[in-house]
Each structure stands twice: as structure tokens, then as C-alpha cells.
């Protein structure tokens, strides 16, 4: 394979497909962390939602019911996380990691118990969420560039992809232009000030956790009922941590964070494309080294372009009314 085999169009489309998992999770994390709760449990919530979505979709033969069930379970876990981190004032990092470990085990055990397929759900078949074909695609498809843009780049994705991208401006709007957003930011930055202003800090944080739970569930549903068509143990494959990285990268701001997610999506797509490509002068780079690209780029970007990111000030600290 030669260097010119490399297709930019394919990378773009692939980027769009890769990003939603991260966008949902990162936006979930954004709500939690802007309210002052570190959300290390994205991975766990994602897994639980992926499993429950797939299982319910399989049993009911309806992907939408699956997604709703996923929302339910992920929100429940988020509230449990809230109970530990907010009410019990426990260590938020521990709570997150504990939930990730527990859910990694539990999803397997439950899946195995019900389906007896080694922690897998059966294939969803028709209960998957299929790609949306935009109206008039057939007619436009043959026009050279526009056809590709309309049918492949913009069209031809599942409903969740559109939801993910629609979410970005919505989260931005909620965060900066609504009462809830204002309180959320205040509570994450200086809960004492918020409290003095008459705001119920714990309730606001719980609301934020609820948002995080709901958003994170889409990430899981996307994995299982859009991308794969079944649930498999540990299928979140580190995406929750990657989403957190995007959040740090984006300085806890929605638009920048989404950009971070797209960047990861892009480099993952790029990596797929350049695997096996013969570079002029260098030759063929081993696949295992190419696998590093997204991570090396992240480190370089963090170190070089965007040194010092500023976290919400009260992040990780339970709200206690004294010193």
C-alpha cells in the first residue's frame, strides 16, 4: 500500500463516528465536574448503560426502550455516586474508581447469569439502532463532492450521532445562559459563596450528577446498540478516561471539550488509516507503534499548546460548612 492510498474523506467520516462516545461521556463529566464532583466513574456508568441498553433492547426488540433503560441505570448509579461523594462526603476519586471496578465485574456477572454467553448479550439483530438515510440521498449521492458530504459526512449516521453533536451547543447554553448553569458553576467554584447566596449546594450537585448520569448513558448505548450490536464485557475500553482527558484538555468548557473529543476521534481515525502505509523515506511503521499516535499527540498538546488548564476550584472537595 502506498502513501497516496490515504483517504482524507474516510478519516473525516470516521472521526464523526468515533466522537460521540467521547462527546456524551465528556459532557457528562463536564456537568459533574463543573459542579465540583470529580467523575472518575464515567467508565462504569458507560458500561452499565451499555449492558442494560443492550439487554433491554434485545428482550423488547426495541432500541429506544433499551436506551431509556440505560438512562435509568446510569442515572441511578450517578445518584449513588452522588450519595457517596456529596451526602457522605467521601473521597470522590475512590468512589469513582470503586464504581468502575464494581460495575466491570457486575455487568459481566449479570450478563452471564441471564444470557450464559460469557458476559455477552446476544446479537441485537433488528433491535439495533440503524443509520439514518437523509431524504433525497439516492438522488444526490452521485454528485461528486456534494453527494459525499450529504450522504456520508452529514447523513448516514445513527440518531445518537446527531444527538451528540446537537448536545454541544445545548450544554454550552445550559452552562452559561441558564439559572441552573450559573448555580452549577458557582457551586463548583466556590460552594461557600453559593451557600451564602441561598443556594442549596448539595441539591445543585445532585442535579448535576443526574445530568451526568443521563448523558453518560447515551455513550454506553452508542457503544452497544449502535457501534457493536451487542454488549461485551469491558467494552468501554478506556473511553471514559479518554473523555476525562478531553475535559481537561478543553479546560472544562463545552466547546473546547467537544473539540478535544473530535481531536481524539480524528487521531483514532488517522491511526486506522496509516496502519500499514509505507511512508516515503521511513517505510512501514509497525502497527503497535502507530497505535500510540492519539496518546502521544495528547501529551504533546497538553505539554506544549495548552499548559496549565484551570480546573473548577472546588473540584474533589466535599462541601463542609467549616474549615
Amino acid at each position: 500500500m502506498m502513501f497516496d492510498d490515504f483517504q482524507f474523506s474516510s478519516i473525516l467520516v470516521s472521526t464523526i463516528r468515533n466522537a460521540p462516545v467521547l462527546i456524551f461521556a465528556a459532557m457528562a463529566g463536564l456537568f459533574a465536574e463543573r459542579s465540583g464532583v470529580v467523575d472518575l466513574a464515567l467508565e462504569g456508568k458507560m458500561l452499565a448503560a451499555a449492558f442494560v441498553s443492550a439487554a433491554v433492547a434485545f428482550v423488547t426488540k426495541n432500541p429506544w426502550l433499551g436506551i431509556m433503560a440505560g438512562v435509568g441505570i446510569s442515572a441511578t448509579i450517578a445518584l449513588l455516586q452522588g450519595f457517596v461523594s456529596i451526602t457522605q462526603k467521601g473521597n470522590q476519586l475512590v468512589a469513582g474508581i470503586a464504581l468502575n471496578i464494581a460495575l466491570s465485574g457486575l455487568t459481566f456477572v449479570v450478563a452471564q447469569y441471564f444470557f450464559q454467553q460469557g458476559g455477552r448479550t446476544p446479537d441485537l439483530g433488528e433491535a439495533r439502532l440503524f443509520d439514518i438515510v437523509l431524504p433525497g440521498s439516492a438522488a444526490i449521492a452521485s454528485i461528486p463532492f456534494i453527494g459525499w458530504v450529504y450522504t456520508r459526512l452529514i447523513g448516514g449516521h445513527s440518531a445518537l450521532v446527531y444527538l451528540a453533536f446537537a448536545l454541544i451547543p445545548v450544554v454550552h447554553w445550559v452552562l452559561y445562559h441558564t439559572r441552573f448553569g450559573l448555580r452549577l458553576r458557582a457551586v463548583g467554584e466556590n460552594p461557600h459563596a453559593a451557600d451564602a447566596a441561598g443556594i442549596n449546594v448539595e441539591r445543585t450537585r445532585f442535579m448535576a450528577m443526574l445530568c451526568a448520569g443521563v448523558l453518560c448513558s447515551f455513550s454506553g448505548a452508542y457503544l452497544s446498540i449502535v457501534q457493536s450490536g451487542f454488549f461485551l464485557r469491558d467494552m468501554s475500553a478506556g473511553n471514559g478516561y479518554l473523555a476525562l482527558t478531553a475535559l481537561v484538555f478543553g479546560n472544562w468548557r463545552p466547546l473546547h471539550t467537544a473539540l478535544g473529543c473530535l481531536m481524539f476521534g480524528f487521531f483514532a481515525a488517522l491511526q486506522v488509516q496509516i496502519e500499514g502505509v509505507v511512508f516515503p523515506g521511513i517505510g512501514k511503521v509497525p502497527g503497535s507503534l502507530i497505535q500510540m499516535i492519539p496518546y502521544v499527540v495528547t501529551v504533546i498538546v497538553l505539554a506544549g499548546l495548552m499548559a496549565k488548564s484551570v480546573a473548577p476550584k472546588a473540584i474533589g472537595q466535599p462541601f463542609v460548612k467549616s474549615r
Partner: protein
Amino acid sequence: ADLKFAVIYDAGGKFDKSFNQSASEGAERFKKETKLNYIEVQVASDTQTEQVLRNLARKKVDLIAAIGFAQAQAVQNIAKEFPATKFVLIDGIATGDNVSSVLFKEQEGSYLVGVAAAIASKSKKVGFVGGMDIPLIRNFACGYAQGAKATEPKIDVVQNMVGTTTAAWNDPAKGGELARAQFERGVDVIFAAAGGSGMGTLQAVKEKGKLGIGVDSNQNYMHPGSMLTSMVKRVDQAIYDSFMQLKNGNWKGGTQYKGLKEGGVDWALDKDNRAVVSADMEKRVNAAKQDIISGKVKVVDFREGNKCPV
């Protein structure tokens, strides 16, 4: 007393839809036919393997099947410690009179599905999705590429690996994504040798109306109509044979290499892919099979020189 048997699966687990599962099917068939039970264990690390092997040997299990190359060293150690216990090791080599090592010539089976893929591909671009980047998987890829190129010299073989850690076997989302990315580059037939991740690949294949090739066990049933074929690796047969031999008293140690000739690997043709395989294709694939068996065609084993001729 009854003979005692055991199967130890590696980290992939009994339900990996791949070679562990195949092993369990072989043991299951043996159990059905002989009513002799067997113990099943799954290990998570090499340390555990040794622990389990020793425990089973102490419990006077007569024949222990160890699935996967990762168990080779542990089998070697324990076989020495317990000369009276017999072992059958899949995909790896351990020495000793009480060890039977079974290796498969995956490259030969892969060659056949490569031939089929090259014939089936309209775009003359075929794809390969591997799980973890290890020599075993590269051997699949290499045999596949040899078959495809032998059939269609100008063909493009696009290869991707899911990852570099064991998580690579459990990432169907990435498996599916790799397939989609390959389709966008014009690929229309994909051979998935990626465990659980491969399930995602084959799903994507079905969804996009392309053709997929399964691996290890016959996976044609998963998506009838969009499965071109499967490269079967008869781990089940190896386990079944070994158990039977012990029962019949003709068990022997030593190393066996199982290729097409020995029936260790093959391509799958059944009702689920009958409609997809044309008569011409069937003829040409079977011809290639005969050529390999007869020695007329030699398929290179990637692992011998750590490189692929094509």
C-alpha cells in the same frame, strides 16, 4: 475409577466465540458421547495457570487440556513435576513424554479464505481485522494476503489491528469502526480474526451489506447471507481426539502440526453461506486446497521469519 479430564481456558474465556469456545465444544462432544465428565477452569494470569495445573494434577486428573500459547511454560513446568499426568497443549510447544503439543497451520486455512475473498471482492480490495497485534494473528493476516494475492495479484489487502493489549479482544466498537473505515477505502470483504472485537466487525459488515469471514469456529450462522465463509481451526477436533485417545488407550505425546492435510484447518461451507459462494469460487478454493495438500503450493508461516512474503 473413571478417567478424569480437565480443560483450562486462557484469559479469553470459554465464550470467546473463538478457539477457547472451540475447545469447549470438543470437550462437550466427548462428554456427550462417552458420558465422561470434565472440569473447566479459566485463568487470568500465568501464575494462576501454574497453580491450577498443579492442583488438578494433585487431584489425579488424567488428562489436562491447556488452551492457548500463554500456558506453554506452565505446562512445561508442571509436566515435569507430575510425569504421571498427561497434558494436551493447544497453540504452544512444551516438551515431555506426557505432553502432546498441537499447533495449527493457520496460514493454510487463511490462504483459502484469502482466495475466496479475492474472488468475491468486486472492488479488488479486501480487508483484515486482527485483535491484538501478536505473531499468531499476523500469521492469519499473512496467509490471507498470500491467498488473495495468488488469486488476484493486483489486489489490495488492507490490514488493521484493534489494539496492543488484551482489551483488544473485547472492543467490538473499535472492531466495527475498523470495518467501516475499511469500507470507506473501498474494501468489500473482511476477514475478522479478533475474538469479541471481531463480532463488531462482522456486525458492521452485515449492516453495510458487505461480506465477512469468520474465524476459528464456523461463524457462518451468525449473519447468514453476509458471511462469505469462516476459517475454521479445529481445536474442538484436537481436544476430542486427544480425550478419545486416552480413553481408548492410544494416547501419545509429541508435537503435531495440523494443517489442511491433517484436517486441522479448513474453510467452512454450509447452508448459511451456500448462497454467497458461487460454483466457480467453490471450485477454485477447493483447487487451492488440493494444491496445498499436495505440496504444490507452499504457504509461508509468518512466525518462521517474522515476515510476510507479500
